[in-house]
């Protein structure tokens, strides 16, 4: 019984972490699906979101949902601006050039934040989210877990609705499938890319606020590792495929908590990269990916 309880406990932790990874992974996958760019700065957008959430909680004293909305709005704008300034001029250059630029944007966000706000950690105000623990069959479930998992699932459902049922979503799918054909059908690629960045960045911001709630602290470099892991999650599910990112995110979160719960927690960062390398070598298109031949 104790073993089952222990396992269930790890699953709960894994699901919370996985929900956060999945939200970040969605942004990676959407952007990659549309402009074939690994937006290296995505994790840092999440960090900015966490800070916006932090300040609206501590300075404005707003409640957690309002803080999350603020963060999502702010990051949507930042995401669009970054795309317009840094990525748009490179849309027709090599993918390596775009990737290097994305690394630059990532460093810029990190160190501008560090420069302005200092390198130290800031603690999320405890009053913003009073923790209650529920005991259920010997398993500890806190309202943090519930908050993270439920809001992540709601956001994913909204995203699915936008992508499947609205005209904007149709445009996004069309551009990611065949950009030239989409242009011929009268779809504005620029506008669609902007919307993609806005949605992806706002999901990252939501994840940022969740990380703030979950781990209680924010710091300027907090986006790097979750960003990389979410990227691995996106690749695991098949980059460019939206349900893939969700599944990949949850798998990644569960795997990571299992490794640190049952194995050596110091290795948990290496696990993500090990998974990445294994997928890339065995099935580079990811779990949900289809094979496409190389065209000359």
């Amino acid at each position: 019984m104790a073993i089952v309880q222990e396992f269930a406990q790890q699953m709960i932790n894994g699901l919370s972490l996985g929900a956060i990874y999945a939200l970040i992974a969605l942004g990676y996958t959407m952007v990659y699906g549309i402009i074939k760019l690994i937006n290296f700065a995505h994790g840092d957008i999440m960090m900015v979101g966490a800070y916006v959430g932090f300040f609206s909680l501590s300075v404005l004293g707003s409640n957690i949902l309002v803080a999350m909305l603020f963060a999502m709005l702010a990051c949507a704008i930042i995401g669009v601006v970054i795309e317009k300034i840094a990525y748009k001029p490179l849309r027709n250059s090599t993918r390596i050039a775009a990737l290097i630029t994305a690394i630059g944007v990532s460093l810029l966000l990190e160190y501008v934040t560090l420069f302005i706000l200092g390198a130290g950690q800031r603690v999320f105000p405890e009053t913003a989210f009073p923790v209650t623990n529920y005991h259920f069959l010997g398993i500890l479930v806190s309202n943090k877990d519930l908050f993270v998992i439920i809001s992540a699932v709601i956001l994913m459902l909204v995203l699915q609705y936008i992508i499947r049922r609205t005209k904007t979503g149709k445009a996004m799918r069309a551009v990611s499938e065949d950009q030239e054909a989409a242009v011929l059908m009268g779809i504005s690629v620029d506008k669609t890319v902007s919307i993609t960045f806005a949605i992806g960045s706002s999901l990252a911001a939501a994840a940022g606020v969740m990380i703030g709630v979950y781990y209680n602290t924010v710091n300027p470099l907090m986006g790097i590792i979750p960003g990389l892991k979410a990227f691995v999650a996106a690749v695991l599910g098949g980059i460019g495929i939206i349900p893939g990112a969700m599944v990949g995110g949850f798998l990644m979160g569960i795997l990571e908590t299992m490794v640190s719960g049952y194995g050596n927690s110091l290795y948990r960062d290496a696990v993500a990269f090990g998974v990445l390398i294994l997928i890339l070598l065995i099935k580079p298109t990811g779990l949900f990916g289809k094979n496409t031949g190389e065209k000359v």
Partner: protein
Amino acid sequence: MQTFNKTWTRFLAEAAVLAVIFTLGQYAITTGLLNQYYQINLNSICINIILAVSLNLINGFTGQLSLGHAGFMAVGAYVSVIMTNRLDFPFILAVLAACTAAALAGFIIGVPTLRLKGDYLAIATLGFGEIIRVVLQNIDYVGGPSGIMGIAKLTTWAWLFGSTILTLVVITNLINSSYGRAIISVREDEVAAELMGINTTRYKVLAFVIGAMFAGLAGALYAHYFYIIKPDTFTFLKSFDILVMVVLGGLGSTTGAVIAAIFITSLTAALQSFPAIRMILYALILIIVMIYRPQGLMGNKEVGRKTLARMWGEKK
């Protein structure tokens, strides 16, 4: 016969110039003309030249974006320190072991990952670099997260100068050989290169292994200059540092990499008390260079004997 003599004269002239530079450096260091601050700077410049030129072989000439250079540097640093600090081997053997180990790591990592293309390769190499670091953090024999302290200072000016020149000579000669042409053809058009009968995987791995080997050399020199090594020194931010030099200098220009390494290292030293500003500048360099001059400052041009000769108006 005449060409033979010409080659020899040129070689001797160059050797003489290098000997003069070396002696001047040695003189400046022993007499204290260069104070400690500038000595450390000079040391960093040499190490960064080795790193930038070797990464440029992979990223610039072969066109395979690797973000794991710091990992190979870590392998070299740790292996050399184990050899000198723990097993009491002479420094030269330690350096050779460091190069071999890093090259071997490059081979083991390169063979599977070089099948990947572009951004996937970049992320996979970044992942491997991080794995190397995390593994080092977990080995108690090498001090775990706190690393190894009290390393003997065995890196002398002669070692630095010699290693830098060796790196430059080996990589320039490699690029100018038939191997080099094959390597460049992989960058220009992999499919076409393959159709011309070039075993592209082989050349990619070759470039990767040689690049890793020199990164190991740089790691050994680094470890034996700064007394202390720890896994945190070799994060992917270190790889990005080197990438900034390669991108700024020009992907595919050895002289560009050298110039950028000197420039960036001096900039780093000047901004030592403002680390955030330094990183913001790095970031802006990456973005602005990619948007406005994606080929870097030098493109794929080199400053060599010919340019110098033209500048001095040498007669034909």
